[in-house]
């Protein structure tokens, strides 16, 4: 009934065979990794003097020379593992020097060969390292590799390499467009990838602002935030009224970073329908110490969105005497109940903070001024003055 012992024996046999396969696979991987780790250690020990030479003479005018014997590919791999992290962490002349050395050692050639490997993981490894090596000759190969590759994480890795190796802003532009159209990446991730490039991408980002594609618009807005040149194209302002919330936020953010705002603008954005924008502006005023806008914070601190209200209070506390005075006004209830609690909280906090950092004469005068303002509103008797 229900059972065939013969089949059961077969089953046992199959299970046992699979177990043996799994076990021998695991063990052989383990062994080979242990062996290669040991080989790597020995190899590094051999290169010890050489690597010390590189570190010591990195700053010397003379060029760095490759090791004085021909290298096997395992040795190249070991050197690559040591040198490329250095390349990644440095910039300027020292990086250039190391890159010339890597070329001389033959790392570029080694990886280019591996770029043709039948194994996708080897090709990816090569692409990754060629990116760090800033090998200008492989960009087009990497681009075709990108177009062939079909899954998210590889695309990201190859795209970074393209951004690192490319010499033409136009290639980066195409890369960004490709990523926007073919992946579901967060736009900030795409921006992060394009930042790997050392080219000036300002014109690329500006051209994105004129595209009829909201994702490209946003990448343009994000990219421009990192540009040193603060001349912001006029069209950015039109994005403030975009239908898309994220675009609106990015546009205001860009204007803010570029300090391209008049008092009227600030006033306007502090009453903008999106709380994120109000919050951002309130934060920015305090953070950048823009005392000329202190008075404008009276409105947002009283609003019902608690995040905006708290941010405004925090900014007021950072804005010197006038800011403190406004907090006191609010805490005394002159403007009604809204914002009263949070104002009190930040007054307490500010006074406590000022007491704690009582080391300079300036602080004492600052503290006295604060107390003076405080007493104007609340009189002398208060637990805080007692706490002193």
């Amino acid at each position, binding site marked *: 009934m229900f059972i065939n012992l013969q089949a059961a024996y077969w089953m046992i046999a199959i299970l046992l065979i699979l177990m043996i396969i799994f076990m021998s696979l695991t063990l052989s991987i383990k062994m080979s990794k242990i062996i290669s780790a040991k080989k790597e250690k020995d190899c590094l020990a051999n290169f010890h003097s050489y690597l010390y030479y590189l570190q010591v003479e990195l700053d010397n005018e003379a060029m760095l020379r490759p090791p004085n014997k021909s290298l096997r590919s395992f040795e190249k791999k070991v050197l690559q593992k040591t040198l490329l992290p250095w390349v990644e*962490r440095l910039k300027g002349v020292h990086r250039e020097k190391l890159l010339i050395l890597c070329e001389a050692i033959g790392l570029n050639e080694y990886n280019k060969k591996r770029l043709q490997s039948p194994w996708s993981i080897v090709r990816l490894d090569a692409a990754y390292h060629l990116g760090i090596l800033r090998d200008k000759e492989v960009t087009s190969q990497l681009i075709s590799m990108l177009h062939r590759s079909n899954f998210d994480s590889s695309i990201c890795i190859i795209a970074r390499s393209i951004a690192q190796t490319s010499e033409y802003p136009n290639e980066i532009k195409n890369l960004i467009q490709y990523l926007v159209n073919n992946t579901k990446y967060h736009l900030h991730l795409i921006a992060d990838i394009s930042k790997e490039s050392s080219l000036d991408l300002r014109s690329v980002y500006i051209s994105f602002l004129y595209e009829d594609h909201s994702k490209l618009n946003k990448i343009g807005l994000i990219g421009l935030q990192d540009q040193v040149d603060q001349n912001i194209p006029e069209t950015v302002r039109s994005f403030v009224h975009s239908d898309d919330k994220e675009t609106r936020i990015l546009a205001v953010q860009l204007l803010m970073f570029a300090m391209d705002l008049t008092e009227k603008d600030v006033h306007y954005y502090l009453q903008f329908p999106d709380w994120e924008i109000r919050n951002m502006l309130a934060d920015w005023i305090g953070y950048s110490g823009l005392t000329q806008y202190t008075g404008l914070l009276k409105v947002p601190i009283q609003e019902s969105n608690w995040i905006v209200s708290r941010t405004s209070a925090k900014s007021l506390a950072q804005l010197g005497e006038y800011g403190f005075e406004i907090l006191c006004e609010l805490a005394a209830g002159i403007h009604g109940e809204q914002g009263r609690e949070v104002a009190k909280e930040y007054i307490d906090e500010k006074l406590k903070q000022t007491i704690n950092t009582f080391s300079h004469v300036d602080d004492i005068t600052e503290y006295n001024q604060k107390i003076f303002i405080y007493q104007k509103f609340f009189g002398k008797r208060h637990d805080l003055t007692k706490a002193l």
Partner: protein
Amino acid sequence: MTETHASSSIRQSFKQFLHYYQASNLPCGVIIAHATLDQPSINSLKAHLEKEEPATAFQINYDAQNNILGLLLDDCNLGYTHFYALHVKDFLDGEDRLIGEMIVGNFPENSDQAEQMLSRMINEMVIDQRNQQEIRVFDNQTIKKTEKNSVLIVDHDTSIIHLLGNYLQRKGYIVHVATDGKKGLEQYKKLLPDLVITEINLSGIGGYQFIHEIKNIDKQSNGHSEIMVLTNKQLEDDIKRTFEYGVAEYITKPFSLIELEARIKRLVEVME
């Protein structure tokens, strides 16, 4: 300057050459190695070097009494001298002749007194008798140890520690390192360095807490260390916050060693 010089045949035999380089203001490299050699092996070393680096003219001398091998390289800079020393070391290692360290020096990069430099190199080798078979670059100690500035580097990234540590050491700083926040604090308490270079992304305790604790220690001990942040963190908020904590400089990775050193110099000068 009164200094006792270990007598060595190398000094005698290189004296004239060094004199010549110094007088005519030509660069030259000096390599000395603690090794046991005999005449055949010296000859094969010569042959080896001529084969590997045929373009470089060199003088060779062996001081059998002190077991010191000396090489004088014509017209080359420190970088090349150091590289050349790798050839020498390869040969000595291969023949199993090396019994101690090797020292590399260059006129005028290491010292503007060629002869004196050689004497000191030999002195250090004879007196210190270090056993580890490595190459090091001659450190012209005109600055006394106590006058050197000390730096504590705190970062979990060993590449940074190696690069920055060696670089600053070459620039005359005393370098200490720690790989996480907790160890960094222990080191700090012990050493009270002039400058701390730290990452914000630390483990154990975070960078902010680390900086905070340092400031506390300073307050208690009435000491003062400048703090420089060298970090992966690119955010404005972090820059702002670290400055509020009293940090003097904020540098993001990847970084330029030259810029970093310039900023360190400025900080250290302000301190003095």
